[in-house]
């Protein structure tokens, strides 16, 4: 199932509402005071307390923490005594965004119990007692006729879960831990989730998985708003997935973005076309040298996975740069004085941008959507305008799983065909598979491995707005009205 369709909708609603309020506060005549008031405006005196909270005071404290993420700061590192108004001022004065884009709201996290094996009331205290007999650690005993697990001895192996004839023993899952493909998030001794940033690959799966909405992205929205307010030339670079996100035609999107205050809009699919050509060349070269396989290199989450967890994959990962890289290079060359903002479907691109001097800021689709709400922009009523450089159909299809490999395939000579393998979403299992390919120096399934951290490709990114199916429909319509990359390459050759 696509990642974003499983996103707890109520938590997305809350996160987006906070963003709209932060933006409205910034655009008001008193940013600092109106930011301080956000938790009170959302939960005024005597208003109903949501049934998942003990009292209005805790609810406001949690909304305050969510606002801190909206201002772009780490919730863990911000002292409770600092006023939101002071943080708003600090956000406005900041020059660069914080290093790691994710932050955990520990007070919201506490509702979820640590992962463990649990004997439910369904236990019949049977004669066979397969759970007791199966447990290698002697952790299960019978007390008052029912099985009881000794947490000191239990190693969470799950054997008892499998053998119970009544399915009375269950493993309690911690959604963020279960979703993380690399074991980078876990509850600490106080029961609060902590992200180990040495392990984290910024895929954002924990943020999508948490039903309490406790994992937040630190927003860079204030930084971008500030540059626009100060009259800077700010240029948007729109990743292909964006064209599936809002209820309008692709040609209307450009005008909607210009209304936010941007000076120009570039399609990142333009950079994807450079990636495709470079990567196709590289693939041919590698195979001619006798290499067994190559993986793609456009997904930021996958790149961080290789860098941090599978260094042995580095020789097999394409050296070709990402579409964001090439697009930003083109934009800065054509507009040396411009501030560039990448419109991203996921949190991982925020990390990639940190290491690229040509990308100044990254905003995700939730943030763009919130900005349009704050300004009351009706995208469906915007006029239509074309991009200066039109990207190819294949470039525009990069956001769909299989799209990158398909684009590369289009440009391969007949005598060097690709056998495509799709890693459609990083999971603990697919990470194991990738490690195996790297270790063996070959992949028995094929020679061109496309890796997407998110299921469905970028359209399944953790910060997308639209559901997968309608988003795919919109993108496919755009792709089908675009020129093929072959035609484009031939035209430039003329």
């Amino acid at each position, binding site marked *: 199932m696509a990642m974003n369709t499983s996103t707890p909708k109520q938590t997305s609603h809350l996160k987006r*509402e906070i963003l709209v309020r932060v933006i409205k506060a910034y655009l008001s005549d008193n940013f600092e005071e109106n930011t301080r008031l956000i938790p009170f405006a959302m939960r005024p005196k005597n208003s109903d307390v949501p049934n998942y909270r003990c009292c209005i005071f805790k609810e406001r404290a949690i909304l305050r923490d969510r606002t801190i993420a909206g201002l772009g700061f780490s919730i863990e590192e911000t002292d409770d005594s600092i006023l939101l108004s002071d943080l708003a001022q600090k956000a406005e004065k900041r020059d660069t965004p914080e290093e790691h884009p994710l932050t955990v709201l520990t007070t919201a996290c506490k509702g979820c119990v640590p992962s463990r094996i649990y004997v439910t009331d369904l236990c019949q205290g049977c004669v066979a007692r397969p759970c007791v007999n199966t447990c290698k650690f002697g952790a299960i005993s019978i007390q008052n006729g029912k099985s009881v697990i000794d947490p000191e001895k239990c190693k969470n192996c799950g054997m008892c879960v499998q053998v119970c004839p009544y399915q009375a023993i269950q493993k309690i899952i911690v959604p963020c831990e279960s979703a993380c493909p690399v074991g980078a998030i876990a509850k600490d001794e106080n029961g609060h989730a902590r992200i180990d940033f040495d392990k984290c690959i910024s895929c954002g799966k924990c943020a999508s998985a948490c039903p309490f909405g406790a994992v937040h992205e630190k927003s860079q929205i204030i930084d971008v708003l500030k540059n626009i307010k100060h009259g800077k030339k700010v240029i948007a670079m729109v990743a292909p997935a964006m064209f599936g996100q809002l*209820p309008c035609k692709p040609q209307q999107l450009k005008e909607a973005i210009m209304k936010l205050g941007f000076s120009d809009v570039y399609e990142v699919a333009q950079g994807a076309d450079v990636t495709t050509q470079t990567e196709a060349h590289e693939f041919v070269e590698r195979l001619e040298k006798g290499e067994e396989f190559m993986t793609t290199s456009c997904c930021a989450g996958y790149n961080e996975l290789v860098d941090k967890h599978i260094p042995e994959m580095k020789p097999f990962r394409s050296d070709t740069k990402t579409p964001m890289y090439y697009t930003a290079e083109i934009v800065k060359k054509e507009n040396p004085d411009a501030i560039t903002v990448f419109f991203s479907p996921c949190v991982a691109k925020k990390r990639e941008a940190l290491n690229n001097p040509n990308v100044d800021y990254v905003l995700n689709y939730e943030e763009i959507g*919130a900005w*349009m709400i704050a300004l009351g922009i009706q995208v*469906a009523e915007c006029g239509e305008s074309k991009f200066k450089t039109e990207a190819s159909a294949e470039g525009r299809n990069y956001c769909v799983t299989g799209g990158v490999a398909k684009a590369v395939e289009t440009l391969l000579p007949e005598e060097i065909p690709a056998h495509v393998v799709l890693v459609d979403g990083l999971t603990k299992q697919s990470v194991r598979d990738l490690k195996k390919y790297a270790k063996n120096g070959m992949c028995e399934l094929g020679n061109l491995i496309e890796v997407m951290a998110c299921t469905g490709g970028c359209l399944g990114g953790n910060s997308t707005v639209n*559901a997968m199916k309608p988003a795919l429909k919109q993108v496919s319509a755009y792709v089908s009205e675009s020129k093929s990359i072959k035609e484009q390459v031939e035209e430039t050759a003329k």
Partner: protein
Amino acid sequence: MSEKVSVKVCLGTTCFVMGSSNLQELIDTVPKKYGDKVEVSGVPCLGLCSIDWEFSKAPYVKVNDEVIKEATVEKVLKAIDEKLK
């Protein structure tokens, strides 16, 4: 009741971003479930979000004359069932 129940899913920018993107499935599933007893469509901004701070109650869906705030698939289906009683 012989008259058709009308369901209007607001697809204005605000409603879309606040969650009607996830209500688009109704446009497919409702006709399958209720046949021609219900007419469902995605419509341009109903204008309900622009008043004061009402964006926070988006997405909006109209089932006949009833406005559903913070609409979910479940809430809309329940409202349709009520109208068909």
